[in-house]
């Protein structure tokens, strides 16, 4: 649905987007992730035909953003960072205006206005001035205007920024709900949001593509093998770490055991297993049968946050090299 190749945007003094390439399939929700100033908004603005790229190409539904911009704009719904509302207009008046801009007329227009009001739960503020609405309602009106012409592609720039936790949840649910009908790109710097809403993640940093993959793959990739955290306790006060380690090591499928920390008679072990082996049940049995307490047993999946920091953090020096071919699209510019 969306295809971006070597997209570049240069300003007088800096390069906001630097040879980015990615593809988004129809019906997907894609999270566009990056720290502030990474080039998320710029990329979105290029996709929505607000600004032309300095290099590379981008197509939406097969239309080029530069050459066939009007066709692209017909198929895109866009919610900028601040909802583009006119404070002096009433909600329904505003939605009608936007609908007309997008080419809807007559009975069709009225039907869509009613529909999006219903969908975005703004029926009760239909005849209120937009300037008087709360931030949450404004955001929803912003979403309503983005979907009014039933676009193939929805581009949402930080749709949950500045909302309270309840509103964030409602907005997320709404976005997930919309995913069936539309291809969605949403940008954010809040990581749990991506974990909760998106199937696919595109991480960019300083204008360059760092990684593009599904959330699950990213987590797996950052870890390599599966690992489990096991906390073992002892009732009689003393716990001999090497003994426990040895015991855990003997469980079938375990490839490595490391003691992470020890406090009094409790110790936390990180157990790595070979790929595809489920060892949690055996680990639990081994601990209990040896007479220890099993305090905790959980998969040590890396949160997206850690992956993100690992991928974008340049100071740490141990930045993981992107594995897929797509991600290696960064080229150094002579400066």
């Amino acid at each position, binding site marked *: 649905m969306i295809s971006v190749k070597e997209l570049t945007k240069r300003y007088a003094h800096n390069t906001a987007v630097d040879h980015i390439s990615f593809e988004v399939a129809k019906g997907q929700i894609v999270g566009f992730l990056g720290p502030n100033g990474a080039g998320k908004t710029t990329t979105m603005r290029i996709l929505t*035909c607000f600004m032309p790229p300095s290099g590379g190409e981008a197509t939406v539904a097969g239309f080029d953003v530069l050459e066939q911009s*009007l066709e692209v*704009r017909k198929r895109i719904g866009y919610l900028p960072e*601040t909802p583009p509302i*006119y404070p002096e207009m009433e909600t329904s008046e505003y939605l009608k*205006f936007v609908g007309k*801009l997008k080419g809807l007329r007559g009975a069709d227009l009225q039907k869509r206005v009613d529909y999006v009001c219903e969908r975005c739960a703004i029926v009760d503020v239909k005849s209120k001035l937009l300037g008087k609405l709360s931030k949450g309602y404004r955001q929803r009106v912003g979403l309503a205007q983005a979907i009014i012409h039933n676009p193939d592609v929805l581009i949402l720039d930080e749709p949950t920024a500045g909302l309270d936790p309840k509103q964030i949840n409602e907005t997320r649910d709404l976005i997930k709900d919309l995913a069936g009908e539309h291809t969605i790109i949403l940008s954010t710097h809040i990581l749990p949001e991506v974990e909760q809403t998106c199937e696919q993640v595109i991480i960019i940093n300083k204008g360059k593509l760092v990684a593009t993959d599904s959330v699950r793959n990213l987590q797996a990739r950052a870890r390599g093998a599966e690992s489990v955290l096991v906390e073992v306790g002892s009732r009689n006060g003393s716990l001999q770490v090497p003994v426990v380690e040895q015991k855990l090591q003997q469980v079938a499928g375990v490839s490595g055991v490391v003691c992470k920390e020890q406090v009094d008679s409790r110790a936390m072990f990180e157990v790595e297993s070979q790929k595809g082996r489920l060892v949690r049940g055996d680990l639990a049995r081994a601990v209990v049968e040896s007479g220890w307490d099993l305090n905790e047993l959980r998969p040590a999946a890396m949160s997206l946050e850690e992956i993100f920091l690992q991928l974008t953090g340049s100071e740490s020096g141990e930045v993981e090299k992107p594995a897929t071919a797509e991600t290696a699209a960064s080229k150094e510019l002579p400066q």
Partner: protein
Amino acid sequence: MRNVWTICRKELGSYFTSPIAYILLLMFGVIFGFMFWNALGEFIVAGMEMQMRGQPTPMNLNEWIISPLLHNVAVIGLFFIPLITMRLFAEEKRTGTIELLATSPIRDIEIIIGKWLAAIGLYSCLLLFTAVNFGFLFKYGNPDWKPLAIGYLGLLLEAAGLLAIGTFISTLTKNQIVAAAATFGICLLLLVFGWVSAYDTSTWASVLSYLSLSTHMESFAKGVLDSKDAVFYVTVIFFGLFFTARSMESLRWRS
């Protein structure tokens, strides 16, 4: 075309849901009403003087009242035009709604013309006030309506030119006050350019005088339709809108 109308209606709506339209109408109505009352007073006094001197020459309402007043409207219009155009693009840029317009499936030129037409619409509402006053002349006197119509045409053309310049300036900034001040400066400059012709007859002076909007208003105010002047205003409109379109394009590249 439908898109132009959509934008134009929305802009007119914005003018009339905010206080700006009413303040302008009120101010203009009071100022013009005063000028009308003043001109009428002068006319009556002059008429009486002539009668006392025993030389009752027929006095022409067009010549005594309508023509000078139309000229005055052209001048005070300068003060109102920046206030009409300042918000057109500057406000959209400040609040970010320009992103909505610029990502909708409509052409830039449709946005520009829609906004410009709305500005002309508001200016026309101001002119309606003058029509009410002139209406009294028709009720109690017998002025010729054709010069008046031509005068209005001239006013509209002049305003359309200045409004196009104002629209252009509004695309250059996010700040409405900056837009208004710059537009006002340029309007005023175009007015005073005409003064040089009073003492200077060099080529430069004639160029400046040609650029002046007031010189082209003179014949219109007298009720003379000169195609030369009409062409001048149409040229100003064309360049105003052309530069607005270019400016919007560069807005896309820069922002």
